[in-house]
């Protein structure tokens, strides 16, 4: 049987090699893939230089801000810029739709600013050409074009009957054909991912990704699984269809519905089911909780009165002036801690809504494998929402550390009621180390993508089940 499979596969490949239209399509895909990778690489380099320069400038600004009161320095604050991950040259993911910089100052945890999509105009909503887009949408279309008549043609010309009468099973023919098309997919994928790995290794010196090899391997496996399932599905449809026209129509409809319509509808449906508040309402609720407390016992006045009482009692003194530290610093930090608590509470509720919205899409991965592969690809390229969220969390922690350090210094080294008399200098600014970001290990990301992994595995499994058994030759 093995020999038959290889023979059929060889014959199929020869047939394909003779078709000029397919050669053109294959070349177009390769050119697009190369262009996408080249453009992604240039964009990565440009962004990397911009971010590194800006980060250095802001760092120098922070260190050279001169002598001033730590609270003024905390308001002066600093900035963090989102670095592009190296694998964004392969999959831009959500980079165009997430903010790129954030201002870190006291009292106000600001939102990220400047979504790149804001600078593009209307056309950005049509999408950007990335290597991931070529593999997720365009390569499956090429697979459809080369496979839709693989069985129907054999049926129309009568060669299928001839083959079966010579003792070749449908299973062998089927496997031979799938093998031939899989070889074509491999011919594209193996050099492409090897190239990606080499570029990744060369460029990885100052990358924010530490596990490049594993990520590239995972990307390769995900795409191989997806494209193999797609190839198998296309061949199966051809086997089941009465004519080439029917096979083509079925496959094109499947491609459009699962690649274009379902991803958009499910994302919109998610938003309809779990609507987000406007920024104004969201911020108002936070400010209200900060001022009036998250429960009646935590109003600003009550919290401050309690804090004052606690400190006076702890140090056994009657007035704030007698405390060995500046109570204003303590008060500032308490205010920060409470603000952080309120923000954490509201952010968690907001992120929960994001997750619920996205889950609607993830669930549809069982119907539309494109969704599963799209989400996994972003995740492994570290351009997905969870990676952005991780970056956001780390900047948040950095901001909290910076403000805490300023408030503690104020509490320790200045005196109560003397604001202009105390000034800190470079020594204090230097205690805040520069912000350095590393993406989490890819294994940490897995837990968020169970649904996508399950749906993609299910698609692959179904495709195995669909392979005709050796005993059945009833398809002709």
């Amino acid at each position: 049987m093995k020999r038959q499979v290889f023979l059929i596969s060889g014959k199929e490949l020869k047939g394909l090699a003779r078709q000029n239209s397919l050669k053109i399509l294959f070349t177009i895909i390769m050119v697009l893939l190369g262009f996408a990778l080249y453009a992604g690489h240039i964009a990565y380099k440009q962004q990397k230089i911009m971010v590194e320069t800006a980060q250095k400038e802001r760092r120098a600004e922070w260190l050279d801000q001169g002598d001033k009161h730590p609270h003024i320095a905390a308001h002066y604050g600093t900035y963090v810029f989102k670095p592009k991950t190296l694998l964004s040259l392969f999959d831009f993911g959500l980079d165009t739709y997430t903010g790129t910089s954030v201002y870190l100052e006291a009292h106000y945890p600001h939102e990220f600013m400047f979504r790149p999509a804001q600078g593009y105009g209307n056309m950005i909503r049509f999408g950007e050409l990335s290597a991931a887009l070529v593999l997720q949408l365009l390569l499956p279309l090429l697979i459809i074009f080369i496979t839709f008549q693989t069985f129907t043609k054999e049926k129309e010309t009568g060669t299928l009957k001839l083959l079966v009468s010579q003792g070749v099973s449908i299973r062998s023919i089927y496997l031979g054909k799938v093998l031939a098309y899989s070889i074509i997919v491999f011919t594209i994928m193996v050099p492409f991912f090897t190239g990606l790995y080499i570029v990744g290794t060369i460029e990885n010196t100052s990358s924010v990704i530490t596990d490049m090899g594993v990520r590239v391997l995972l990307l390769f496996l995900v795409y191989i699984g997806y494209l193999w399932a797609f190839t198998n599905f296309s061949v199966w449809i051809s086997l089941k269809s009465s004519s080439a026209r029917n096979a083509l129509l079925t496959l094109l409809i499947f491609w459009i519905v699962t690649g274009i319509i379902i991803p958009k509808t499910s994302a919109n449906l998610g938003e309809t089911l779990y609507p987000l508040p406007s920024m104004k309402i969201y911020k108002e609720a936070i400010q209200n909780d900060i001022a009036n407390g998250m429960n009646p016992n935590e109003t600003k006045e009550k919290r401050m009165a309690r804090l004052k009482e606690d400190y006076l009692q702890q140090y056994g003194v009657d007035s704030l002036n007698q405390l060995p530290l500046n109570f204003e610093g303590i008060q500032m930090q308490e205010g920060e801690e409470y603000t952080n608590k309120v923000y954490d509470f509201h952010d968690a509720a907001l992120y929960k809504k994001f997750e619920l919205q996205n889950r609607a899409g993830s669930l549809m991965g069982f119907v539309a494998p494109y969704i599963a592969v799209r989400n996994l690809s972003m995740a492994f390229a570290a351009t997905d929402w969870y990676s952005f969220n991780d970056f956001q969390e780390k900047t948040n922690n950095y901001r909290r550390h910076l403000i805490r350090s300023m408030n503690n210094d104020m509490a320790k080294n200045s005196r109560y009621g003397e604001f202009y008399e105390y000034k800190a200098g470079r020594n204090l600014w230097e205690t805040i180390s520069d912000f350095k970001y590393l993406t989490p290990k890819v294994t940490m990301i897995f837990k968020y993508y169970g649904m996508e992994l399950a749906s993609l595995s299910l698609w692959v499994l179904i495709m195995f089940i669909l392979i005709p058994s050796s005993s059945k030759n009833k398809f002709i």
Partner: protein
Amino acid sequence: MKLILLLWQREGISIIRNTFQIIMLSTVFLLGMYAIYYGHSKITEQQKTIKNVEQIEKEEFEHYKKSFYRDHTSVKEKQLFDIASKPAYAWYRHGYHAILNPHSLAHMSLGQRDIEPYYYKLTGMSLYYQLFQIELANPLKLYAGNFDLSFVLIYLFPLLIIAFTYGLYAEEKENGMLPLLRLQTIGLRKILLIRMAFYYVLIVGLGILLSSIGFLVSSELDVLSIFLWISAILCYLSFWFALMFLLISLKKNSSLTAISAASLWLLFLIVLPAILNVYANLVYSIDNTSLAEITRRKGLENEDDVNESKAVIFEYLQNRNDLKGADSLIEINIMAKAYAAFTALNDNHHRKEVSDYFDQIRLRQKRISAFRWANPAVNTQGILNEIVETDSEIFQSFYQSIESFHKDITSFYFDKLFLNKEITSKDYETLPKFNLKIDSQDRNQKIRNGFIEIMVATFLLFGLSWILFNKTTF
């Protein structure tokens, strides 16, 4: 006429008998209905926020106005009155809103309304501290895009056209009907065009029906916008029919016609725009990192140093010839004046940087839109967004109008602050108001050009197909 009716009747019967085609039409109709619902709910949500924001502003200023007629015996009342009447407190506390209200048909093509903020709260504080905010949005949803009516019309309707027309000639040949048709006295081209006209009426009719439902759910009917919308749909769908006429005229087999049509759909809707976006990013890359710094909350280096405060105030007054005599009044409210002057100087200092940034964006958008003529899908999306004012240019105009609104706000307070004048209850009748300034001529020109480009492409394709049909053989 009899022939037309006969052929149309035949096509009608074939559609009714074809479950697949009925399902396809119903699905597109239902998706269109959902798209209208989604767009409408999104805009309703934005309108609610706008109302809320307007109410907050109204209540805030009502409080200030009332404080002029109350006793100021309690600390709270006194504080409120001070904020209402003293520019030294008011300039950074009085909150105004600049709002970009949605067009009555915005729900049909949401455009950039989910990415760009459509309202801003502004005080006399640094403009750039307040300008670069973003609206809450799920990035994955932004990436997936809006499922609005324009998406259904631009993406899905061409697929309907392809599905209904790709086999009009080739299938007759493949089914053995062509020799019979050739025996008729009527030309094959005429038969084909009559049959295509049937699908034109059916699909365009469905597009107009869905659009009409969209018009009906809008709060007000803007006749010009409705006329332009329908014209845009007619032009775009006509282009696709002309394109299919061309493919059919090549007289290839049905599979090859379908593959070619699907490839062209992919080219116009995905590949070309995606390449252009990447090209724009490479050639006109925008550096916003330098802008981040100007959003910083800055203050005087040594705010306790009176001389430094005075120096800042004098520097500001040098540029304000209209505030004659203000320099002799600086001893009163010196800290507030110094901060106001510092803020204004700081904004002036960064104005060029911000303007350069917006110029970069405008240039990039101008360069990308120069390719619009080559892609009717992008062109139509642009036209629809421009008709319902959800395009990126309207947001550029919004930013520019905010800049002049902020100028009005600072003038209102700073003039009084530096001349040591109080805000009176009468001044509340002449508070600064936001006005959106749009270059209507430029917008109309763009819409007009878009129409011409699509129509020219359509006529060219139609003309070419007309000639090709009789020249090519199957």
